[in-house]
């Protein structure tokens, strides 16, 4: 059928987005609507001793100032970051200590500036080191992964290995910074709460609000029609939605809370810094004998979130002896959280850089080194892979990139002041899937309506789900209408962990397939209300699989390093993926390329600095936190293998939203080494570091 799965269908909401009529959470205006502005704490640890609202309340237009002294009481949340304005405790700098509600944005901002908060500040500690006395081994890392796994005798095997790499890498704190800052508009009417929010999953927002405000979920509606990106930071409810609901209840007005950009680093999560130690021991042919990946990271005092950066080492390579360890220190820092490919992005940067170092040490081609260490089963679990086409990705990538005949010697290709190099890295991301429900209805006019509370954060969920539905129904795409983005729709999982399309698509497929069967059995014209079917994938989508299920990919980068300035430019970036069936090549390509773009930022431009004296992130705005711009991005290409995998879901798809970032930073770092002979082990590879490295190397060569 035209436009079904596999077709490059155009985004359904595209017209609204290019025309400026797509509405985002802060763009719902109601009569009497008010605006709110938060007041962040200016100490890194301590207690609020006083909130003087006198000056703020006389600012013309200010309606109310909420603080822990007067804000509505909430039932204690599961997520401590949402317990805003509930007590005097300041767990980190930037924590919200008050909220000003006003008639206008200007009055709200002026009011917030006029609130006088006094603190009893305590000594704080925000500096993460491997030897920090507070470092401990948690029970598990993010995603429920055990913190430690060990096989065999990794230390002994490492000590006796013919070829060894023992190196440390550092990935700095990173910020998600979706283009739409977190925002929510809330209103109460007759004991019912309606919220428009910028979230990756409104179901969780509704459940959280219900728990916080002690309301049955039926009295809450949460919508997220369009979401201006999330990248993990909108995967859980954030303080904006709680504050909006509180302020709306307190003032009796519809209230919009649109967080100022500078507030985001402190309150919407960040990728925690990770300190890696990698030890690879191999025989003379490059076969790994020992693989040890140890990660130290930070979390906040109020919430344990442990970036699972050593987990990909449990998936990637065959090594008879291995250890993967996560350690964490709880510091007076903002709570870290999910950022695109949590675990895999920093972990694979370190592992794939170390693999490159091993290849250089062995004088082996880095692709061949990886091929040589292909496992037969998932190394950690011993499960067979449902499909694993890493080698295919490496080979196809090498072909497309023109890898053959690459001169492995570093620092030998010059173009005037530029040093040129190429690099490769592997990528992996797990297949995650969660139960969802959906309904499908055939209408007498010949159209079909599919309803599911999926969230389109830019992935093209509407479009691809309609394609899945059209296929299952056996009808043209144009006949399928779809509704997403509201808790009024059948409940579904969040847009996160690259699980959305698989999870929602499964439910949509089942509902539509069921409807197709009903229609086949239905004689004559449809009744006026049409004919419906529903599906709930509970029990199926969350069933334990006998297979290890992961997407794989290979990244290739070509860089030019300017020896005058240390500036790095990526001339070409290629990703080749094995991610099951690609349901919409048009939107899929955009997701792959988008992930690679963020990976380029991670490699070259992005990095945040925890200010030890003040306890906040120094790079708090978009002028200082350098998201890549147009000029940073030259040729980026994404391709994929045709991968048939019947052990996934009815569509045969794997997630594609995150794998693009995973190997990109390592590929670029490896290319920079190939270009210059300088191995930098701390991201980003900024001009100051590169130039210093180049000068050090020149000084060494001169000796």
């Amino acid at each position, binding site marked *: 059928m035209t436009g079904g799965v596999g077709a490059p269908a155009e985004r359904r909401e595209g017209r609204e987005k*290019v*025309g400026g009529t797509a509405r985002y959470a802060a763009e719902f205006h109601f009569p009497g609507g008010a605006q709110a502005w938060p007041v962040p704490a200016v100490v890194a640890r301590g207690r609020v001793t006083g909130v003087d609202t006198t000056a703020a309340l006389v600012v013309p237009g200010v309606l109310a100032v909420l603080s822990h002294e007067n804000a509505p009481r909430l039932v204690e949340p599961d997520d401590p970051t949402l317990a805003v304005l509930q007590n005097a405790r300041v767990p980190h700098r930037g924590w919200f200590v008050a909220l000003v509600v006003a008639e206008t944005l200007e009055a709200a901002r002026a009011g917030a500036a006029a609130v006088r908060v006094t603190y009893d500040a305590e000594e704080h500690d925000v500096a993460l080191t491997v030897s920090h006395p507070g470092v401990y081994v948690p029970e598990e890392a993010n995603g429920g992964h055990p913190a430690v796994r060990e096989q065999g005798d990794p230390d002994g095997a490492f000590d006796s290995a013919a070829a060894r790499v023992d190196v440390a890498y550092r990935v700095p704190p990173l910020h998600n910074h979706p283009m739409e800052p977190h925002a929510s508009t809330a209103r109460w009417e007759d004991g019912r709460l309606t919220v428009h929010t910028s979230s990756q999953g409104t179901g969780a927002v509704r459940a959280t609000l219900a728990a916080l405000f002690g309301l049955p979920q039926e009295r809450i509606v949460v919508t997220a029609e369009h979401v201006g990106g999330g990248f993990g930071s909108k995967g859980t409810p954030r303080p904006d939605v709680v504050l909006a609901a509180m302020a709306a209840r307190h003032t009796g007005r519809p209230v919009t809370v649109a967080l100022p*950009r500078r507030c985001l680093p402190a309150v919407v999560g960040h990728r925690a810094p990770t300190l890696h130690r990698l030890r690879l021991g191999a025989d003379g042919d490059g076969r790994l004998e020992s693989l040890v990946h140890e990660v130290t990271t930070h979390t906040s005092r109020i919430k344990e979130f442990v970036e699972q950066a050593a987990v990909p080492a449990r998936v990637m390579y065959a090594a008879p002896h291995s250890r993967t360890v996560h350690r964490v220190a709880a510091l007076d820092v903002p709570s870290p959280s999910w950022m695109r490919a949590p675990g895999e992005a920093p972990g694979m940067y370190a592992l794939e850089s170390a693999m490159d170092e091993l290849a250089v040490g062995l004088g082996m081609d880095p692709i061949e080194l990886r091929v040589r260490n292909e496992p037969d089963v998932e190394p950690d679990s011993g499960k067979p892979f449902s499909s694993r086409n890493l080698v295919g990705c490496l080979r196809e990538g090498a072909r497309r990139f023109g890898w053959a005949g690459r001169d492995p010697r570093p620092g030998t290709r010059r173009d005037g002041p530029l040093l040129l190099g190429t690099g490769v890295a592997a990528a992996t991301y797990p297949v995650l899937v969660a139960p969802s429900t959906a309904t499908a209805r055939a209408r007498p006019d010949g159209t079909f309506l599919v309803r599911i509370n999926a969230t389109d954060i830019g992935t093209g969920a509407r479009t691809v789900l309609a394609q899945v539905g059209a296929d299952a129904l056996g009808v043209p795409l144009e006949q399928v209408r779809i509704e997403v983005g509201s808790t009024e729709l059948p409940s579904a999982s969040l847009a996160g962990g690259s699980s959305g399309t698989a999870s929602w698509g499964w439910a949509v497929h089942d509902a539509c397939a069921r409807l197709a069967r009903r229609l086949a059995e239905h004689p004559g014209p449809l009744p006026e209300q049409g004919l419906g079917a529903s599906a709930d994938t509970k029990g199926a989508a969350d069933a334990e699989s006998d297979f290890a299920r992961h997407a794989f990919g290979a990244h290739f980068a070509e860089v030019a390093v300017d020896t005058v300035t240390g500036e790095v430019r990526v001339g070409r970036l290629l990703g080749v993926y094995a991610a099951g069936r690609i349901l919409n090549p048009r939107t899929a390509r955009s*997701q792959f390329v988008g992930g690679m773009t*963020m990976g380029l930022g991670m490699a070259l431009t992005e990095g945040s600095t925890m200010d030890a004296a003040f306890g906040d992130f120094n790079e708090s705005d978009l002028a200082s936190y350098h998201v890549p711009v147009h000029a940073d*991005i030259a040729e980026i290409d994404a391709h994929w293998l045709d991968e048939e995998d019947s052990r996934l879901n009815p569509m045969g798809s794997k997630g594609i939203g995150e794998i693009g970032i995973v190997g990109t930073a390592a590929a670029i770092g490896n290319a920079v080494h190939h270009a210059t002979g300088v191995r930098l082990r701390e991201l980003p590879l900024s001009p100051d570091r590169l130039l210093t490295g180049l000068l050090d190397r020149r000084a060494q060569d001169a000796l």
Partner: protein
Amino acid sequence: MGNHRHHARTALRVNGKPHTLTVDHRRVLLDLLREDLGLTGAKKGCDHGQCGACTVLVDGRRVNSCLLFAVALDGCEVTTVEGLSGDGEEPHPLQRAFLERDAFQCGYCTPGQICSAAGVLAEAAAGHPSHVTDPAAPPGEPVPLDREEIRERLSGNLCRCGAYPRIVEAVEDVIP
């Protein structure tokens, strides 16, 4: 309405329609468009001129509407993404090209990218150089927009979804 010392009447044409409003001096064009006129196409990404999501055309030139006090724009002509195609139902060629190229994902930076691209086309045609234009190029002559030029000129518009390559293609599609 507040104190007359802090408010003023300002007259603007927005997408061809005249508007006369009494504005708080602190009101920036972006908030006037979004809050007073309900034109939410221009987006607030940073509120400080650091992301470009709020880009609109003022008297035909692209600017960050978050940094312009509305009161200072008295008499100006403003074009937003909603008015780019004039009165017609048909999208502007840039809008069409963005659709065809899938030059966006979340859509939040998109109106700014499109307005910025409209400004870029005019600037290049008027002979405005960029950082990557050959300094020896003849002043005053239209600057050919190759990919490097488009990328440099659009660098004031961040896109976190990473739609950059498709955006550049979309702009190429409409270069006369």
